[in-house]
């Protein structure tokens, strides 16, 4: 049986401090950057709050519920994704007012559409590293 294609775990902390995202993901908790000045989340992580410009940022867990804001089926991809094609991809708008791009997994094809309710699921990268994905609420 051929071994599954590698899904390398990216290196954290490359351009800003992202380790809390990965530490949280290891425990299957989705932690995103939160601006304590304005009470708003942001994603992807930045060196400052995009809402206030300050570094008053912390990492908070989000509830994992949201809706599909945009979705597509990727049929051609870079080599690292090729083994998983076709691949359901979506921009998820979380209840906390922030968006994250993720794969949709474990969901019937006809259920994957804009405005569908989704919940956090976990996909596995190499080394059994959980990575956030979403599934449609049945």
């Amino acid at each position: 049986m051929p071994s599954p294609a590698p899904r390398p775990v990216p290196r954290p902390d490359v351009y800003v401090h992202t380790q809390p995202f990965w530490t949280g993901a290891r425990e299957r908790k989705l932690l995103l950057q939160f601006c304590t000045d304005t009470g708003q989340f942001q994603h992807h992580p930045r060196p400052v709050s995009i809402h206030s410009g300050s570094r008053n940022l912390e990492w908070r867990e989000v509830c994992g519920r949201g809706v599909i804001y945009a979705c597509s089926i990727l049929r051609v991809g870079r080599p690292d994704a090729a083994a998983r094609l076709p691949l359901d991809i979506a921009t998820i708008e979380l209840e906390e007012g922030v968006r994250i791009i993720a794969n949709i997994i474990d969901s019937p094809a006809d259920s994957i559409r804009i405005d569908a309710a989704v919940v956090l699921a976990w996909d596995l990268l190499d080394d059994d590293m959980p990575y956030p994905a979403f599934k449609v609420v049945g």
Partner: protein
Amino acid sequence: MQQNIVIAGYAETPIALKTGRSAFDLAGEVFADLLAKTGLSPRDIDGLSATLPLSESGNVFLAAYMADALGLTPTWLNASGLGGCSAVGGVARAQSAIRDGACKIALVISADAVSLSGPGHFGAYRAEFSEPQGVQTPAAAFGLLMSRYDHQYGLDPTALGKIAVTQREHACLNANALEKLRKPLTMDDYLKSRMIADPLRVLDCVMFCDGANAFLVMAESEARARGLSKMVLPTAYAEITNYAGDQSCPDITESGFWRIGPQVLAKAGLKPDAIDMFQPYDDFTIAVMMQMEAFGFCERGQGSAYVLATDLSYRGALPLNTGGGQISAGQPGLAGGGLNLAEGVRQLFGEGEGRQIADPKTALVTGIGTIPYGRNWSTSAAMILEA
């Protein structure tokens, strides 16, 4: 009274695949051609704006090395790092530099050779948040963008097909277009073309190629003193980067053109119906349609109906990318932003040959640069040229 700062010369190499040449070598070819066309010598040029190409990404000395490669000694040097807006942005900055007295004659040059080297690597690139899900490609980002547009407004695939078919007809008339794309396309070909990221088809997309283009910017009086009789005047320019960059949940069907489109038309004192040709940056067909809406050629969300009802050929009501655009002539990496500018200048010079628009007076040229995480494109730039 401010003097007119004009584009008084342009040159463009043919677009080719896998040349094995460097951006510098392509730049040399287009530079020599530009000198031959205008009769200028390298010593006449004292300003240089060099587009940062993908194939030289990481080369922070690109602009100075370009001066060295071309034998120039500029008193004004600009590394234009606006992605697909680098050519129009370079022209606008050159105009300012000339007005400020920093130089008299500026070369705005873009050359890239990406068909072998592929894209470079970028510092703040968000690998952690896009590679595990396989969404790091521009096609994935545009598939998502198109899905949202379709949800909000409805997207007729035959409208995007018409853009692809019309631009292909134009490429067939453009000797500089990539040879393998100089074959007519039917609507059936478009609709049957392979899905890349639904609803994005392969014929909605550009192909990475090699090529170069260059422009000479100077005062109108300088151009006339040098016997250059053909010139176009950029009468308005606007750009914006990281549109909605302070929001976590912006409407991604809205781009920076929603802000700068009306601005640039107002600056030129023109209504959309006074635009004789539209030469928009076209990395994907949907970007063309979204720009038509933002500039007010039609109402928001009415892009499909407008495209289907409008003759977009070089003989039509709104001639669109009359050289074929990047989608049909080929995208010479980040020199691609100069392709549509060169075509606008060429048409206003009356050098459009078999695709010449009848007596054009105005052109609208745009650029797009960089695709951010989960939002619309980053930089939008627009320039109006008048004969």
